[in-house]
């Protein structure tokens, strides 16, 4: 059995508006798992169920073989980092970090030792006598992390911890979090709406939508093999077209043309999808399969490439092209959809 396991969790407000419904999630010891999804998908609610701030109407939360569903927050011993960091404004950095240890009635010498250790790890030397308002965003973030880690929690729960930082610092901090997490081997749940952040940091990703997990897999698999249309759209697939199976690896589109697909998921009717970057614009007829022609309707300059919206017989396709050749509105172009880039959902 998994180290952490959420079983059939349901959360509803006023007994009827379900935020989570039949949610299941297993996390192995030492893993960093992200909950990814748009706002309102239930990712923060899931985290708050694990933290103990929300009592689920149904279901159980098992940790290390122990049913934690009814254990109050203050007895769970989980480290939390909030989006706003939630440092205690009236206490110094050192007092913030010591807070959890004081609650555990740890003796002075041992406490001092633990604090020094975590101050070292989180790179907070020289800042311990400051108040939170005298710190920069990144420093506050590290104090919040130190405060959560010093109690040696069974779980580390991070609720959008990087979203208040500027872009450069965000990348730096996520590497830092990953490094700390691996070093301490602490099982971690990370809530985010930023897919790049999520992919870079996680061992596994749970993509959530409308209170359920749509797909739970490694970042690589989610990126290249989304299982549902929602997941595909969320991670950057833009072109969807109806397909019907003809035989193994061969599908028919709505015009009756054959589309070859490498990743055959054994679906009879489904949608094929492909990223704008993966469609190639071809000029000479050196490819003979998965070709489609259309007329350029909108051209947008993206810096390193142009993006075209193309009207075709199977609907609008979005194509990114960094080739020398630039097309304008009204041009007819041929596009090649590589069979190994088409995903079925």
């Amino acid at each position: 059995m998994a180290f952490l396991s959420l079983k059939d969790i349901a959360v509803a407000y006023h007994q009827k508006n379900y935020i989570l419904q039949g949610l299941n999630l297993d996390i192995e010891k030492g893993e960093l798992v992200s909950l990814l999804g748009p706002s309102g998908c239930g990712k923060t609610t899931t985290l708050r169920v694990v933290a103990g701030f929300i009592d689920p109407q149904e279901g159980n939360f098992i940790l290390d073989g122990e049913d934690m569903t009814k254990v109050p927050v203050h007895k769970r011993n989980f480290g939390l980092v909030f989006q706003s960091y939630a440092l205690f404004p009236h206490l110094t950095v050192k007092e913030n970090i010591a807070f959890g240890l004081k609650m555990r009635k740890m003796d002075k010498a041992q406490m001092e030792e633990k604090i020094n250790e975590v101050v070292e790890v989180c790179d907070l030397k020289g800042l311990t006598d400051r108040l939170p308002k005298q710190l920069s965003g990144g420093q506050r973030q590290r104090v919040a992390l130190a405060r959560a880690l010093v109690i040696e929690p069974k779980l580390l729960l991070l609720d959008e911890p990087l979203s208040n930082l500027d872009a450069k610092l965000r990348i730096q901090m996520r590497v830092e979090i990953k490094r700390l997490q691996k070093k301490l081997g602490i099982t971690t749940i990370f809530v985010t709406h930023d897919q790049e952040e999520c992919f870079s940091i996680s061992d596994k990703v749970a993509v959530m939508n409308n209170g359920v997990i749509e797909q739970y897999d490694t970042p690589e698999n989610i990126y290249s093999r989304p299982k549902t249309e929602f997941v595909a759209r969320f991670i950057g697939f833009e072109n969807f077209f109806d397909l019907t199976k003809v035989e193994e690896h061969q599908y028919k589109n709505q015009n009756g043309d054959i589309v070859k697909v490498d990743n055959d998921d054994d679906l009879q009717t489904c949608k094929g999808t492909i990223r704008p970057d993966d469609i190639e614009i071809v000029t000479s007829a050196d490819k003979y399969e998965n070709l489609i022609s259309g007329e350029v309707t909108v051209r947008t300059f993206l810096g390193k490439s142009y993006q075209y919206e193309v009207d075709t017989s199977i609907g609008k396709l979005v194509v990114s092209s960094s080739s020398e050749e630039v097309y304008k509105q009204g041009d007819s172009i041929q596009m090649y959809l590589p069979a190994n880039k088409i995903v079925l959902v």
Partner: protein
Amino acid sequence: MRKHKGLMIISILVFAFLFIPLIIIAVTAFGSEATITFPIHGFSLQWFVNVFESESFMSSLLLSGEIALLATLLALLVGVPAAYALARYSVVGKKLLKSFFLSPTIIPGIVVGYALYQYLVLSLGFPVFESLLLGHFLVVLPYVIRIVGSSLDQFDFAIEEAALSLGCQKGQAFFKVVLPNITSGISAAFMLSFINSFNNIPVSMFLTGPGVTTLPTTLMNYIEYNYDPTVSAVSVLLMLATIVIMFIVEKTLGISALAK
């Protein structure tokens, strides 16, 4: 900023309208004649001496202070938890509760005073002091709930949750991390409540009895029979006290916090 002449003239007129009576009162307190006259013809501090030597002024001053202090503390005891609950939880009928707590500011004080007099003192035979205390408590409670409430509205409750996750129980968390961060709101509420209770007339007017008369009531009674500058002297002293208190509020929290 662009200066607007017309606006400036109107502002000056309004301020003059507000302040000139106060200035006149303050000046008359130092007059040497036995009636309130303006302008004064001689300088004297005898009316201030009069205030401090008057048995009724001094005892009612003490009573007013006592009532204001007790009513304010009582209101804090009830109002802080109420404001906390209103800010923290989605209570059913939250809006209704909020307006209920604020209703004493909507109902005229004179009605509150009369109602308390009628039911507590006359019908139930409640002692006057306790009734007076209750009346003042009702008058100041809305101030406490509003001011502490606005302090709590700016409080990030994730801080409380962080304390819980670090091993605090709910009650403990309130005292360890919530209370220390709303102290400015609480002290503002304390001072404003105190001033309000201390200056209150409508409620106190009804709830008065032998040995239980607040300073403003004593002042009013005094004016009915005497027209000497003692009253002006008391007014100057009260204004001074209020200015000092407001100054402290401004320094700790900012006057703007009271306007919310």
